């Protein structure tokens, strides 16, 4: 199981989450997003970049409320709802956005 990228095979698990997080880069993210049928816009990148910054600091993706609050600050209150996040990442902001951002899948009752 892997993404074919720049002549390389980048390993992922059964669901497409990267096995080695350090292999992530922005071009690979575009490829993962394409697999997920997500056309990346600046708004998608805002989310992905925030997830990566947060993960860098805390080794986990942020809570949905933390994410919406951060987006509201950066991009205005109309961008601060669950609905907005689902418009960007229809499969669910936590899981789909994490996959594209090269982060591990959030586990548990979520």
């Amino acid at each position, binding site marked *: 199981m892997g993404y074919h990228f720049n002549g390389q095979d980048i390993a992922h698990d059964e669901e497409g989450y990267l096995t080695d997080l350090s292999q992530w880069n922005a071009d690979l993210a575009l490829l993962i997003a394409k697999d997920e049928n997500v056309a990346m816009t600046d708004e998608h990148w805002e989310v992905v970049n925030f997830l990566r910054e947060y993960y860098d600091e805390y080794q986990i993706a942020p809570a949905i409320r933390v994410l919406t609050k951060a987006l509201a600050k950066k991009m205005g209150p109309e961008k601060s709802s*669950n609905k907005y996040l689902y418009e960007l990442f229809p499969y669910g902001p936590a899981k789909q956005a994490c996959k594209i951002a090269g982060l591990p899948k959030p586990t548990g009752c979520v």
Partner: protein
Amino acid sequence: MDVQHPFSDETTELPDPTEMPDIKVGAMAASKPYVAPCTIQEALNYPGELVENWQEKAVAKLGDLVGRYRSLKVFLDSCVKCGACTDKCHYFLGTGDPKNMPVARQDLLRKVYRRNFTLAGKYAPWLVGAVDLTEEVLDDWYTYFHQCSQCRRCSVFCPYGIDTAEISMAAREIMDHIGKGQKYSNEIIGKVFKIGNNLGLPPKALKATLEGLEEEIEEETGAPVKLPLDEQGADILLVTPSADFFASPHMEGLIGYAKVFHAAGAKWTLSSHASEAANFAMFIGSYETMREISLRIRKAAMDLGVKRIIFGECGHAWRVAYSFMNTLAGPFDFLDPKYPVPQHILEFTEEQIANGTVKLDKSKNDHMTLTFHDSCNVARASRMGPKPGGQFDIPRAVIKASVNNYHDMADETIKEKTFCCGGGGGLLTDELLDLRKKGAMPRMRALKEVEVNHGVTHMAAICAICKAQFSKVLPEYGFDREAIVSVHQLVSNAIILDKPNEAEAD
């Protein structure tokens, strides 16, 4: 108070949640969760992959389990094939696959038990439906014991009280011991031991999340509501599912608990060591692991010197806590004997409402009409409060104290007959989404009926799995994703908090 809704004079006939489906043999034969890889298995001291002599090992483990658990032996021995359970499973109702009839599911294990542990099965297997454990049988085990959410609805209707949940737990335990574990549950259990909770949320992130919530609540309400972490000498340890620190509407419930504690003036704390109420070891039938996870709560309570332990909104955690914690991790004689061990957050909140320390303005929830989804493990595997039926009455009492508009779903779908959300028992994983959607069908039909006939807009629940599952499947049935709410979210909306400057002005 039940409000007479303008819709309630005439009712529309809608599909019956308990309707017998057309039989579709093998419809779900391809539905299987991912098998746990070697690293996940070995972290829990199970073989990394299917062992060579797996038949022999599996039968030996089955013998060990029927020797250890009298209940399991009775359940395997006593079925008379009366058929009362056949149409009681939500997965059968939703899929029509006859192997999802509870009796058929039980028989997958029972036929191997008979072959190896009963006289008739050893000498005349063809007479008693006894078979050897073949690859095909093992494949059926893996497939169909992961289509049981261990919700125990079938056992309510069984005249012998046979509990399919215990049989499916035993089957999963056997499979783990021969190296065929389920990735979802076992990965999560590994995270509890490695990081402290199902989510994998490190203490630093937990602290930051709680501080962020404090700021947010104060901004919104003006009240300095705290969410203390590892506070030595607090009276109450709150143990809650880690989903409460991450997902929605879970987190809205957590905010509700914090506001209630604040209004009650309670000294409470969360613990970074016991930052998880869930105990997935129950789903895989592992007594030893269930005990190890429970001991984390004991240790946190002792280290922090608390007087009482309260559990947040989590269904199976409450079952483990209420029904097993004392034998798993007791005695809890170091806690204050004035309070039950453990207590549910709803018991606490109900008491505060009754004695007037928590005051609620119901009109704050007037944009919603509520119903309540009884979570299976709370409804059928535990109680709540001092009175029988408290697990049904206390949540409803708290909801009705918080909202003006409430209507129950059909009787055959609530309380002890409640339908599983479709994602319980370790099945809340994406590769089982088809099963989860189908299994949610009875609950979704019951919800539709109260939506159409009584104007219900939202459904409240007290289980992290139910909340996550419904957030995922509600849109599949034409409902709004955010139609699922936490019970303490309703409390949170309605609670009247004194602001410090107002208190001074008084």
